[in-house]
């Protein structure tokens, strides 16, 4: 006869039921927190929006863990405390994004008139000026930088992924690309200035020098993103092409690059968005001018970020007008950068090859 007396009986087992808060508890405390914040912090103590936020947050982070501690015990209470804390960091991080967007839109909106986009600042005193010259400057300087960076960046990525085989040279290049990623933008500007000064003498300023400075910042980003994308192309596809008797370079150009093109375009677009907003290197190399200049190899060329900076830093006599124009230009710049970011994401998701894997 078998004896089952060693098997656990129900009395040996800890009860699985324990006290827990109802599911609506966080929501309920949240409502309470808003109420306390608005009524007490905002109105009774007269703290305004800031007061309401602080007091509401305090209510939330004190009441919910305390309630939990009474009903659920210490460990759960700590978990709830951390949950509120972690979400608070996110809320805090969103404040600058929201306030920055709001500030730029509300202050910049008024400046956007047709003349604002049609005029340059040549001979403008007070009102009536525009950012046409700066828009064109940004366009030209960034376009030239892209023309320099994309071939070098993509081909370097091709070298690293397809030819490097982790040999010494490719490891050195990978390391240098890492170093380049960390170069402060103003140092890139100093480099381009020092380089052009040798050929054109001290005080040289031209759009092309700005493009070179931006390329120093752009190349590593392009290399990195292209490298990632090329690595994602399955080896199977390369082998399939080789087995058809296709030379390696045609395999890379006709099979590997087309497969990775969506990702590469995304990376390049993000890189353009980044350098389009650069100020410091252009301040040192492309300089500042009030008039239109279409020639990147001759004379100073203003870009939007430099225009914003100088309008604030050296407004001259018409402080209010210049400040308002700076905000207008800031709004335009933010819209351009955001559009580029959205474009990058759309390209990335729409044109990605429909791979079965």
């Amino acid at each position: 006869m078998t004896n089952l007396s060693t098997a656990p009986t129900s009395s040996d087992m800890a009860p699985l039921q324990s006290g827990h808060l109802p599911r609506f508890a966080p929501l309920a405390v949240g409502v309470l927190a808003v109420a306390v914040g608005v009524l007490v912090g905002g109105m009774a103590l007269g703290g305004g929006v800031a007061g309401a936020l602080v007091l509401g947050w305090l209510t939330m982070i004190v009441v919910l863990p305390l309630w939990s501690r009474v009903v659920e015990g210490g460990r759960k209470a700590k978990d709830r405390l951390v949950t509120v804390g972690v979400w608070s960091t996110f809320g805090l991080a969103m404040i600058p994004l929201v306030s920055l967007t709001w500030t730029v839109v509300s202050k910049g909106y008024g400046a956007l008139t047709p003349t604002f986009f049609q005029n340059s600042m040549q001979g403008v005193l007070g009102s009536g000026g525009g950012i046409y010259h700066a828009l064109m400057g940004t366009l030209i300087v960034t376009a030239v930088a892209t023309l320099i960076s994309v071939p070098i960046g993509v081909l370097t990525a091709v070298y690293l992924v397809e030819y490097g085989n982790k040999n010494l040279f490719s490891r050195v290049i990978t390391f240098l690309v890492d170093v380049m990623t960390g170069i402060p933008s103003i140092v890139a500007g100093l480099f381009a200035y020092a380089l052009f000064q040798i050929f054109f003498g001290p005080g040289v300023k031209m759009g092309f020098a700005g493009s070179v400075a931006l390329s120093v910042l752009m190349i590593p980003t392009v290399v990195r993103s292209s490298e990632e994308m090329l690595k994602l192309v399955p080896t199977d596809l390369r082998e399939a092409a080789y087995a058809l008797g296709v030379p390696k370079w045609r395999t890379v150009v006709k099979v590997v690059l087309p497969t990775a093109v969506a990702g590469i375009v995304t990376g390049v677009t993000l890189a353009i968005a980044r350098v389009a907003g650069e100020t410091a290197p252009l301040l040192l190399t492309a300089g500042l001018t009030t008039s239109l200049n279409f020639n990147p190899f001759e004379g100073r060329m203003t870009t939007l970020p430099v225009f914003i900076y100088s309008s604030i830093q050296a407004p001259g006599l018409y402080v209010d007008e210049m400040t308002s124009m700076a905000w207008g230009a800031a709004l335009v710049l933010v819209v351009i950068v955001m559009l580029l970011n959205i474009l990058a994401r759309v390209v990335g998701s729409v044109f990605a090859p429909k791979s079965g894997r």
Partner: protein
Amino acid sequence: MAKSIDVSDLDIYYGDFLAVQGVTMSIKARAVTALIGPSGCGKSTFLRSLNRMHEVIPGARAEGKVMVDGQDLYDADVDPVAVRREIGMVFQRPNPFPTMSIYENVLAGKRLNATRLKKSDADDLVEKSLRGANLWSEVKDRLGKPGMGLSGGQQQRLCIARAIAVEPQVLLMDEPCSALDPISTAAIEDLIHELKSDYTIVIVTHNMQQAARVSDDTGFFNLKATGEPGHLVEFNPTKKMFTNPDNEATESYISGRFG
């Protein structure tokens, strides 16, 4: 147009590691030669050395002679890329090009080599190759659709069509059915039977019944011991191999006693 292949004393290395040692065999034209053996015994490596595809793997190299139609594939002035146009390959997993349609996939070998074809010639070639791969009737109405949209078995037949569109002498197949279901496998095996009349076919397989069904000759590869290089144990007509093998190890492998 099919060619025979004579391999003599071929050694294949990965860096300093000797992976396959001393293989000598004669692969007949217009016949199917199957290579069987346990995993890691070097049969796929050997197969790749027949069209120099092993060179794609960094550090891999081969020593010995592989004679096709009187030319040694490993002569100093032989271009591996040209070799691969004569000796095509089909892989374990179907790998159509994801950026190309079915039509473009079949023409890939020509297009990627920048061979100019008249539209009518290109259409003819696509139809011939797809018919050759028993795929024409299934895809003729959607040639413009991406190749990735086909089922696994259809994708594999598309890869075979792509391989025969460059008009090779020899077709190498590296476990072409291991990623497919039984029905697709049967379709590929039928296709191998038909292709035999025009091509020399070498197939690596893990499936002994498949080797028995499709091949005329069979080579059995094995490791001498763990860590030792793989070698060719026995090479004989398939019938003899599966009824009365010369070697004891072959018999125990085929009867399922190991591997």
